[in-house]
């Protein structure tokens, strides 16, 4: 069969039920194969939209997302989603067309060195040099993307090679000599960790996106409740532990709760699971958790002791390690009373420093109120996909996520424009869930063209734009750290999002009154099809509390 038909067979064998992409010259053969392959293909309006949609699908389902693009500009438009998937460990396979082999290196039409450009931002990549390599490369790409620490894998296929006539045999077990992720976790180390937890008087469990990736939330819950261990999550980890649980301290880091950050500051033992001590979490590294020893559980050995030296490193799959850690801990004779004093402190911080904002006296909608209203309108059950900026932080703070994969956002790379296309992918992956986007008026415009995709493909996502007419987070930093010199952050009142929605074939609504906000939001969610809700909020509101950049956690402001 043609190599491109083998590509389709590979996708089916990998269980792919949807791909996102846009055709072009170099992947014309591939698109010919799509014509009757029986795989759902969603035609996006920009390759970046396709890449983020594949990420959203992967994050919502835990399965590998797939995005296709042509050579040159098609592939370079994928650079942002690839980098995003790398930073947030999202399993996505990107398959790009490339110019014919005879044109390689000649600056041929729509030629770009896709392999070279993407090399620093992929988990792995394959440059096809012979048609017979294609099936194996695709299967290996899926294997590498989904195993170990997940990540993006790129397969670049020159146009002529994709037309080659090959024999296709389903790949058996994939074994790559240079790629053997450690999943087991060292038993001695796990026992050490259990003992350290049993001895700790001021422990904190600090969980990250790795727990979500490893589907290890249940195991995390068991560890937390094996004693009364307080739990905090990173931005990427939200939902890994229920936001309504009494042991939940809230998110930690730059815009985390005071309780969570003070807990890290005062802890004598921090058990990090699938988290990477990002600078947005630690604040000033030299003053981070000064009294703590660290257990660090991660499937990626390079994360261990990268930023903070680990006393008890455990390399392995979070679920596997946590389950054994729970068993080891339960086998010990522990004294629950040792944590009482710690909980008194935590409860005091919680009472003294709840998340708070000054609500408006009139009908003006405060952005924090908007998130709370959405929580109410969705009964806290929707999949929330966020863009990047102030609205993202407020959503992380005020929408109490109960389950993993309920919260989808771009954390590491902080990609504006991520939200709408990612929600598209999430909705296709989870058709029975209500999927809402919270976007800023700045970030929605970075991939607003995907509204056309949503309308055409009948993907009923509900887009809530927190519209303050600013690049709000930049404005906040200019206000706080740059003497209020608001340099190029005012977006005015453009565009008219209601008309924009209608132009794209979606429903547009504008909301300005807080008193009816919850019911108006409910009505928008109940409206069939794609709905864009332009929520006008307070223009100059700041995201607090905040650890100023370079400051220590205990010096939170606001």
């Amino acid at each position: 069969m043609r190599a491109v038909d083998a590509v389709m067979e590979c996708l089916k064998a990998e269980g792919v039920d949807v791909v996102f992409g846009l055709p072009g010259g170099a992947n014309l053969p591939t698109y010919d194969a799509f014509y009757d392959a029986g795989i759902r293909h969603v035609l996006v309006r920009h390759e970046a939209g396709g890449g983020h949609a594949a990420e959203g699908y992967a994050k919502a389902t835990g399965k590998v997302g797939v995005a296709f693009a042509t050579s040159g500009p098609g592939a370079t438009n994928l650079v942002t989603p690839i980098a995003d998937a790398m930073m947030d460990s999202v399993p996505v396979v990107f398959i790009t067309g490339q110019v014919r082999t005879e044109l390689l290196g000649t600056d041929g039409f729509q030629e770009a060195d896709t392999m070279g450009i993407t090399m620093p931002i992929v988990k792995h990549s394959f440059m096809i040099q012979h048609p017979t390599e294609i099936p194996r490369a695709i299967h290996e790409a899926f294997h590498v993307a989904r195993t170990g620490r997940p990540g993006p894998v790129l397969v670049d296929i020159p146009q002529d090679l994709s037309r080659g006539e090959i024999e296709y045999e389903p790949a058996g077990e994939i074994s790559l000599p240079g790629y053997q992720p450690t999943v087991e976790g060292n038993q001695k180390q796990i026992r050490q960790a259990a003992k350290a937890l049993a001895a700790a008087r001021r422990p904190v469990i600090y969980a990250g996106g790795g727990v979500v990736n490893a589907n290890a939330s249940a195991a995390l819950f068991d560890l937390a409740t094996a004693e009364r261990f307080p739990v905090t999550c990173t931005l990427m980890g939200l939902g890994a532990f229920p936001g309504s649980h009494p042991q939940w301290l809230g998110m930690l880091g730059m815009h985390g709760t005071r309780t969570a950050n003070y807990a890290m500051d005062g802890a004598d033992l921090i058990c990090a699971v699938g988290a990477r001590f990002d600078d947005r979490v630690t604040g000033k590294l030299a003053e981070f958790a000064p009294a703590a020893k660290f257990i660090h559980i991660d499937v990626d050995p390079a994360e261990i002791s990268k930023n903070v030296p680990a006393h008890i490193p455990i390399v392995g799959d979070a679920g596997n390690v946590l389950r054994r850690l729970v068993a080891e801990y339960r086998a010990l004779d522990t004294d629950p009373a040792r944590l009482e004093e710690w909980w008194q402190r935590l409860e005091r911080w919680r009472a003294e420093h709840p998340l708070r904002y000054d609500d408006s006296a009139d009908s003006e909608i405060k952005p924090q109120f908007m998130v709370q209203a959405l929580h109410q309108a969705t009964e806290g059950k929707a999949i929330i996909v966020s863009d990047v900026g102030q609205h993202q932080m407020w959503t992380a703070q005020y929408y109490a996520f109960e389950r993993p994969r309920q919260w989808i956002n771009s954390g590491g790379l902080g990609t504006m424009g991520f939200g709408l296309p990612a929600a598209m992918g999430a909705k296709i992956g989870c058709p029975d869930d209500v999927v809402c986007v919270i976007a800023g008026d700045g970030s929605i415009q970075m991939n607003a063209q995907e509204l056309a995709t949503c309308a055409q493909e009948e993907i009923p996502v509900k887009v809530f734009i927190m519209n303050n007419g600013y690049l709000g987070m930049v404005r906040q930093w200019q206000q706080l750290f740059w003497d209020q010199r608001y340099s190029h952050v005012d977006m005015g009142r453009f565009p008219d999002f209601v008309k924009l929605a209608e132009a794209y074939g979606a429903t547009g609504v504008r909301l300005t009154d807080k008193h009816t906000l919850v019911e108006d939001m409910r009505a928008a969610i109940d409206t069939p099809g794609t709905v864009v809700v332009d929520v006008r909020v307070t223009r100059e509101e700041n995201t607090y509390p905040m650890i100023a950049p370079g400051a220590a956690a205990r010096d939170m402001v606001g």
Partner: protein
Amino acid sequence: MGEPATKTPLSLEELDAATGLRTGRTHVLSILVENRPGVLTRIAGLFARRGFNIETLTVGPTADDRFSRVTLTVDGALHPIDQVTKQLHKLVNVLKIRDLEPAGTVTRELALFKVSAEGAARSEVLEFAQIFRGHVVDSTKRSVTVEVTGAAEKIAAFERLVRPYGLIEMMRTGEIAMSRGRSET
């Protein structure tokens, strides 16, 4: 948003200090890789991203033609080297990495020296070549070209000796390194 977040300008000295932290002993990394196109680019790119200067680099075939051996020397303090080897391990085409201990390792490098050699100087240069067990591989009336093999220090010593005579050109291959004893590197 990136730092610095405040409007305080950073002095050039501060910036230099922030970028020039890593000086430690020279590490010899021996890396066994799959013999595939692009592997060297991946390795070199990783070093560049982590801010490491590769001092020498050699790549060549091994006894098994599926694999190649990359030997490189870098200057680094212990901790960042550890981070680099961990990152290298994540490359799918990298099979094995060893940060070789100097005492347990045989290292060799080959160098060619083209030296001005006229009159009395000529015999002195030839004498040095003999002492260093070098070979004269080319000669003109006014110059000799000497091949010297050995550890990097030996080659550096030869360079110091002949430089005053007029070193026209020098080329070095970069070190290769093999662990001592029966086991594989």
